[in-house]
Every structure is written in structure tokens, then in C-alpha cells.
């Protein structure tokens, strides 16, 4: 709980009870408890309205990569557009750095978009009639930067995303991956506080997608921006996200770190979702350790509870005896033996069933 409160006070973005309903008389839906309780399908039948985002609440901490994940139609893109008010939310509050975004006028909103937010789009949204450098400089151009300055900055960012040499090409001469690098550069050029990604890599080939994901991780390390990332790809979410929010039919199902989602799915929907994940790459030892039993050999290797299972495999199997899990104060908090390791690697079900609750929750 203290963690939660801390997040609220420090958060860059703080969203409370956000609703977006499309259709006639949309604003009635969030206010009426009966209507708000209906499922999406029932709501359409009853009122003709579609609830794209239903009562979503979350915070994003500075420097965090916050991933919103869901299948198509789950409302994740609408949610993202609500955050920058490309779509006006129906109700709720959104604070950005202590400022109520919903209260600002059009001029101030434009100001925020020009300086604080940037967005990267699934289908790039590049200007085909402009060269790469002019595309990257667009955000600076519309806020009135001089040509020399915006060109200088654009060239810097082009270098940063690894497009040097292509600055005077036109977008249609570049591959999809390179076009998205231009989109990324355009977003970075204005030096925003927050980057919004709307399924930026879904339109790319798998190999290029992996490249671009690594690129984002690298950029995140280098520039340390807060990022809100939308995706429908769980492995992408697990790879990039500090925390992940899973959405379904407009509602948030679970918010948590990757290992929390895999180790303790909130419901069958999430469990289904994470079923095919390679658990040993997501779960840490904390999720699989068992309490020490009398007779356990106490000379096995010592491991921390945040070590990933697949990193511990070799150590545990080589020692031929269970590893002792110690917390930071050097107290023994659990044991991990062959059995636990094999449970994760060979089967997907047993672990999930055996440890639907972690042994220790504190983190």
C-alpha cells in the first residue's frame, strides 16, 4: 500500500475512473451504476452505446515503461488517445505532472502536445511529401523553431535512432522498420517527457520487430523517458514493460509486473493469456521456492529471490542439492530444488496451479 501511495504522489501520469463511451447519450453511462455494471454487449443492446474504456485507474511512475496490453477491441488504443485527448474521455480525471489535463483549454493542450508528449503510431503517420529530416523536424517546425535549429536537432535524433545517411530520403524509399525509426525520431526530436507508443511494431516483420524492441530498450536506457506502450503481443509486453496492464472489453483486468501476471494471474482470462509464455524467463525464484523442510541440506548454493528461474537452472542442477534463497538481510526464506526447477521448465500447468499465490508477496 505504501508503494501505491508513493506512486501516486510521484507519478507522471495519474488516471482515475476513466471512461470513454461512444454513442448517443454517452455521458449517462458512467454516472448510472446500473448501466456501468452492464457488459459491453448488454450496454449496446440497452442504449446503443459502446463502452471502449471502462473505469480505468492507473499511475505511471517517472522513467517507467508502462505497457497496456489487450486483444484488438479491448480499448487500449482508445485509452491511449484519451491520454492525449485525441479522443475526449467521457468521464474521469487524468493528471499529468500535477496538472489536470481534462481541464486545460485547446491552446494549453496544444502546448502540452508540442512539448511534453510525443506519440509513435502503428502505421507510422509519416508525411510522404517530406524528406526524413523534415519529417523528424516537423514537431519543432510547428512550434516555431528556426530552420537551422530544427535541422540540427533532427540530425542529432536521426543519428540516435541509427538512420544517419538516410536523412534526405523520402519515407516511401525506406523499409517498414526504418520508417518506424523515423516515427520514433520524430517523437524524440521534441524532447518530450512522455512517449506514447500505439502498437508501434505490429506492422513489422518479426525479426525487425525484435530489432525495434531492442532499440526501444536501448533508447530507454539512454534517454530515460517515461513510456506508455500499447501492444497486443504478450512477449513484447513482458520484454519491455516495467509494469503491464491487461485490458479486456475496455476494463482493466490486472496491473502488475511481468512475473506477477505469470505467477499470479488475476483470472482465467489472464491465465489463458500467459499460458504459452516461457515461464522460466519470466518467473523469479520467489514464485517457485518452497519453505525449508527439516532435513534439507544446508550447503547448497545461495541465490537471491529475484533471480530468474532460467538463470538459476544451471546452478541448482550442478549442485545436485536444493539452493537456499536468502533475502537481503541474509535470512533463509525458502528452498529451490530440482523438483521446483523442472516444474517450471517441463510443465506450464503445475506451477501455475501449485503457486497461484506466491509464497511471499512483499516486494
Amino acid at each position, binding site marked *: 500500500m505504501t508503494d501505491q501511495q508513493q506512486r501516486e504522489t510521484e507519478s507522471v501520469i495519474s488516471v482515475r475512473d476513466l471512461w470513454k463511451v461512444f454513442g448517443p447519450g454517452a455521458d449517462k453511462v458512467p454516472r448510472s451504476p446500473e448501466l456501468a455494471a452492464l457488459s459491453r454487449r448488454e450496454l449496446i443492446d440497452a442504449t446503443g452505446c459502446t463502452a471502449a474504456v471502462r473505469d480505468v485507474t492507473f499511475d505511471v511512475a517517472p522513467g517507467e515503461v508502462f505497457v497496456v496490453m489487450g486483444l484488438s477491441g479491448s480499448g487500449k488504443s482508445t485509452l491511449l488517445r484519451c491520454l*492525449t485527448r*485525441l479522443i475526449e474521455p467521457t468521464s474521469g480525471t487524468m493528471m499529468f505532472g500535477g496538472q489536470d489535463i481534462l481541464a486545460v483549454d485547446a491552446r494549453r493542450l*496544444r*502546448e*502540452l*502536445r*508540442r*512539448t511534453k*508528449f*510525443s*506519440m509513435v*503510431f*502503428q*502505421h*507510422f*503517420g*509519416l*508525411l*510522404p*511529401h*517530406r*524528406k526524413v*529530416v*523534415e519529417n523528424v523536424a*516537423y*514537431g519543432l*517546425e*510547428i*512550434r516555431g523553431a528556426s*530552420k*537551422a535549429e530544427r*535541422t*540540427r536537432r533532427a*540530425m542529432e535524433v536521426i543519428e540516435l535512432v541509427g538512420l544517419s545517411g538516410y*536523412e*534526405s*530520403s*523520402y*519515407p*516511401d*524509399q525506406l523499409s517498414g522498420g526504418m520508417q518506424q525509426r523515423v*516515427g520514433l525520431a*520524430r517523437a524524440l526530436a*521534441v524532447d518530450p517527457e512522455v512517449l*506514447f507508443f500505439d502498437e508501434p511494431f505490429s506492422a513489422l516483420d518479426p525479426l525487425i520487430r525484435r530489432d525495434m524492441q531492442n532499440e526501444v530498450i536501448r533508447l530507454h536506457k539512454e534517454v530515460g523517458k517515461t513510456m506508455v506502450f500499447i501492444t497486443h503481443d504478450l512477449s513484447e509486453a513482458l520484454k519491455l514493460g516495467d509494469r503491464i496492464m491487461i485490458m479486456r472489453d475496455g476494463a482493466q483486468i490486472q496491473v502488475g509486473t511481468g512475473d506477477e501476471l505469470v505467477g499470479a494471474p488475476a483470472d482465467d482470462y489472464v491465465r489463458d493469456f500467459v499460458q504459452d509464455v516461457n515461464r522460466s524467463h519470466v518467473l523469479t525464484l520467489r514464485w517457485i521456492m518452497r519453505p525449508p523442510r527439516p532435513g534439507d541440506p544446508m550447503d547448497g548454493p545461495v541465490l537471491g529471490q529475484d533471480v530468474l528461474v532460467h538463470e538459476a537452472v544451471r546452478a541448482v542442477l550442478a549442485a545436485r542439492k536444493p539452493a537456499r534463497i536468502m533475502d537481503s538481510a541474509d535470512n533463509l526464506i525458502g528452498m529451490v530444488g530440482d523438483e521446483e526447477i523442472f516444474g517450471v521448465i517441463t510443465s506450464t500447468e503445475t506451477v501455475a496451479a501449485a503457486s497461484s499465490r506466491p509464497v511471499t508477496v512483499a516486494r
Partner: protein
Amino acid sequence: MSTATTPTARDGGDGAAGSGTPEPVEVGVVVRGRRRLTTAAQVAVVLVVWIVAWAALRGTHTLPLAPSDLTSLHHSLNDARDWVDDNRNSSPIFLYVFNEIRVVLNALSQMFMNLVAVPPEGAQFPRLGWLGVVALFTFVATWLGNLRVGLLTLVGLVFLGLQGLWVPSMETLAVTAAAVLVALAIGIPLGVLAGFNNRFDRLITPLLDFMQTMPPFVYLAPLALFFGIGLASAVITTLVFAAPPVIRLTAHGIRSVNKATVEASQSLGATPGQTLRGVLLPMSRRTIVLGINQTIMAALAMVTIAALIDGPGLGKNVIKALSTVDVGTAFNAGLALVVLAIVLDRTTTAMALRSEGGSHTQRHRSPLARRVEQWRRPLLGVGAAITLVAVWLSRTYVAYAEFPFTAGGTWDLGRHVRRGADSVTTWVQDTFPVLSEGLMTWVTRGIIDPLQALLETSPWWLTSIAILALAWILGRWRATVPAVICLGLMVWTGLWQDSMITLASTLVATLLVMLLGVGVGVWMGRSDRADAVIRPVLDAAQVLPPFVYMVPVVALFAPGRFSAIVAAVVYAAPVAIKICADGIRTVSATTVEAAVAAGSTTSQVVRKVQLPMATPAVTLATNQGLIFVLSMVVMGGLVGGGALGNDVVGGFTQRELFGKGLAAGLAIVLLGIMLDRVTQAASRRVGRPGR
């Protein structure tokens, strides 16, 4: 387009500047080698040099020709006309070709005329009286379409009668029917052939382009010469203009039939003929019927214009009203044309829908419609019986043969229409003098006069050099070569100065068209509501024959150059607006969203994203605007637009000016080809990457 996508084609900034961005945007760091002047700057340089030279040389070498003066070319054209007149009944080419065609077409159209409009020789009434016509058409519309269009036909036809325009309407209908019949008889087989045979398709496509873009007035006079004034010429003129849509759409329909279905048919051992009849034609029926629909609409518009060569029908009423600036009468006749157009359009559209075929469309109908559908057969039977009785009545009793119309009676709707139109015109004239006077003075003094002075009084060689320089800048060889040829031929026609005056008016009209096109187009492209309101108005304006709104325009602005320009703008603006709006609309939503998300203002989105990305559409709209404006030049001549338009009209009306009129028609075509090639070449260079 192909060269534009290779990186080497873009040395320097000439490509970027053509994209319509307000500032030249090439980047110093990036550009290697020398900087070049942007396209806009080059154009400006040419214009400045031209104006300076004009100031020094004005009034020399302008190749003027007084209205009654003729060149040797005009004389020889007159001689050719005289030769044709003299040998019409002796030369074999006339005896065996033109006269034969004329006889056949005359007989065909005379047959339709006698059926519904004019009494056959020796008779007192047409073969079908009004009641018979109304009943028959209503029945056919219900049978081939549905009950709704049947009722529409009934009301529409009776309305025509009550306007006091029964006979001219029927004449228009008869000539339209004859022309459409011939157009379909020729067009559908040609379309099928073009659908099958790529080489034939490539051969015929430019020809069809030419037929559709050439102003009808240009071939009106030669056709009248070869086929004589009257029915046959009217039918052929209409045919030239109306056949292309059905050919194109038939070919398109055949081509777009699912390949797998055709292969399936072939693999079962069907002969080409069987595949055509059993698969291709039925599956492309809807597209073909759409082509028939467009052909009918084009024919209707053209039959009106054919009144200029003594084609019968409503067009004559309009032209007569035009010469006396009788707004009421013109509007009444125009309304009749619109009613006819609506009836024919809705009926053929309903036919197209029915030809879609039964079961799958019926499932989605309302219960009432389904019940009507159940009763369809018996109802049709009853309808057929009533129709037969009506036809018999109309052939037996005078009251059912001649439309019982009494001028000035209670049911004289025409009177009300005329009065309404007259009073609206008077009201506008009285209430908005600013509109008629102020606008006219402002545009005339501010734009038309200076431009016309430059073009009219520059030495011909100076103007030619300037035009060629502009063509080179805008379109390189593709633009320059046609411009050289066209300018040369224009000098040869002996009508250089008139051509330049017409060019000035055309450019001004096109400028106004594009202001409207971009302005309204952006508005429509960005707002669904604006689109929903404006689009039907544009559709209506496109159906309306230009004659009809010439009259109120003349009433508002007085006959003369400005009226001609306004009429051309009214004619051309709908097309330009639609193309621009569609261009704005097709700009990728993501790109617009990206621009908004970056914090662009609305005007930044329009200027920096939507308009530049819609550049191909805007250049296309300019091109079409120019062609449409040019095709109104002769129409403008009818209201004293001056220059080439007057020359062509003079050629119709005065024997000794025939040759000059023909040459003027040729000059219009030359202007059209030149402007078309230059704008197309420019759009090829400007409308680069992205597509």
C-alpha cells in the same frame, strides 16, 4: 512517376518546392552540390521578365483579326463547305457513306419521334397519346425497377405535361432514346471486346478520353456539315458524347469478374461464347447497367446542346429563352430537363439493383417490401392490362392523345414556375447589388483586365516564349513539345489574339474554380456534416445542363465576358470541389492524427499535412477544372463572352463565317490540349512520392 522515386532524380531542392509547402524546405546540411531556384521562383522569374518585356513591346506583333476579317485558311474552309454543299448528292463518299448513315439515323429517330412526340405524316397525333406514354413508361419502370420508381415516373411525366412542355419533353426523350439505342448497340460489343483484349483496350482508351474531353461544340459544326442540320446530326453528336461511359464500364465489368469463376467455366469445357453469355455478362450486369445509366444521362445533357444544330426538344426552349434573357421560361424548361433526368436516373438505378438478383437482396427488405414483392406478379399483370387499355384510349380519343393543357389555367404549373424564378431573380438583383455589381467590378478590374491585357497585347512570339518557358519549368519535355505544336497551330488558325483573350478568361475562371475547389473541398474533406449537405447540391449542379443556369447568370451580371466566366465557374466548380474533397479525405488518418498529436493547429494540419498530401488530387482538379471551363467557352460565346466563343457561335449563324468558326473551334481544342498536357506533366512531376 517512375523516375521520381529514384533518389538520383532528386538532386537539389526542385522536387521539394513543388510540393506546395509554403517555404522551400530543403535542408542546408543535407543538400549536396549547388542550390537551384525552386519551381515557384523560376515561374516568378519568367512572369517578371514577361511583364517587363510586355511593357516595352506592348501592342506590337499581336496578330489581331477583326470580327469580320477572314484569313486564307478560313476562306478555304468555307470553300470546302461549299464543295460539300454542292456535291452532297453526287460524290460517292456522300452517297454511299454519310447519306446512308444519315438516312438510317433519321429513320430511327423519326420512328421514336412519331411514336411519342410528333404526328407521322398524314396523321393528327403521335402514335401514342400522352395517356399511353404515361401508362407505358410507368409500367416499364415498375416492371424493370420497382413500384417506387414507377410512381416517380408517373408523377414526373404528368408534371412535364402540366408545365406545358409535353411535346418538347417527348421530343427530347425520343432523340435521347434513339441516340442511347445506337450507343448501346455499338458500345456494349466494343466494351466486351475491350474487356477481353488488352491491345484493343489500350487503343480505345485515349480515343474515349478524347471523345469525352473535347468540347461538343467543336464537332457540332463539322457534323452538321456532313450529316446536314437536324435529327441525324443531333443523334450523332449525342452518340459521340454518350457512348464512352457504356464502353468503359462494360469493359471494366468484364475485367473485374472473378478470375476463378471464369477458369471454372473454362475448365468445364465452355466455349468462349458460352463463358461470355453464362458467366461474364451476367456477373458484370450491374456494372453494365451502371454504364447504361451514365450513357443515358450524358445523352440527355447532349441532346439539349444539340438544339444549336436544330436538334428538337427542350434545348430549343432554353436557347430561345437565353436569347431574350427570359429567366422564367429557361428555368421552366430546365426544370423539365431535371425532372426527366431524375426519372431516367432513378429508373435505371433501380434496374441495376434489380439485376443484382433476387434472394440475397430480398432477405434484407422490410416486411412491407417483402409483401409487395409477393404481390409483384399479379400486380404487374393488372398493370399490363391497364397499360393496354390506356394505350388504346390514347389512340382513340383526342382527350387522351393530346395533353389537356390550357395555358394560364389552374393547373398550369409552368406559369407558377416561371413567375417564381422571375421574382427570385429580381429579388436577388435588388437585394444584393453588391454581389452582382461589386464582385463583377472587383474581379474584372483586379484580375481579368490586367491578365487579358498582358496576353492580348504581348507580341505573339513573346507570349509563346513565356508559355514554353513555363511549360518547360512545370513539365519538361512532356509539356513543352505539345505546347510548341499547339501554339504553332494556333498561329496557323489566324485567331491568335482571340485565343489569347479566351486563354485569359479561361485562366481567371480556373483560378476561381480552384479557389472554390480547395476552399470548399477542404471544408467538405474535414467535416462529414459539410460533406453531407454540399454533395447533393454538387450532384444536382452536375446533372443540370449548363444552358439552364446561363440564363439567371446573365440576368444577374448582364451579357458579357463576366457572365461567361461565372457560368464556366458554376459548370466546373462541382467537379473540382469533389476531387479536392476526396483528395483531402484520402489523406491517411494516422498521419493527420500524428500531426494533431504533435500539437499542430488546425491551420497547420491543413497547410502542412492535408493539402501537401492531397497535391495529386488538387492538380487533377486543376486539370479537370481547366477542361470543363474550356468546354464552356462556346456556351460563353452565346452570352457575349467574346473571342473564340463568339467566333464559333458566329460560324453557326452566319454562312460566310463558317470557316472562321471552325478554325475557332480548332483553336479551343488546341488550347485544351495544351493546358491539359502542361497540367498533367506538371502533376506528374509535382505529385511525387507516396503513391
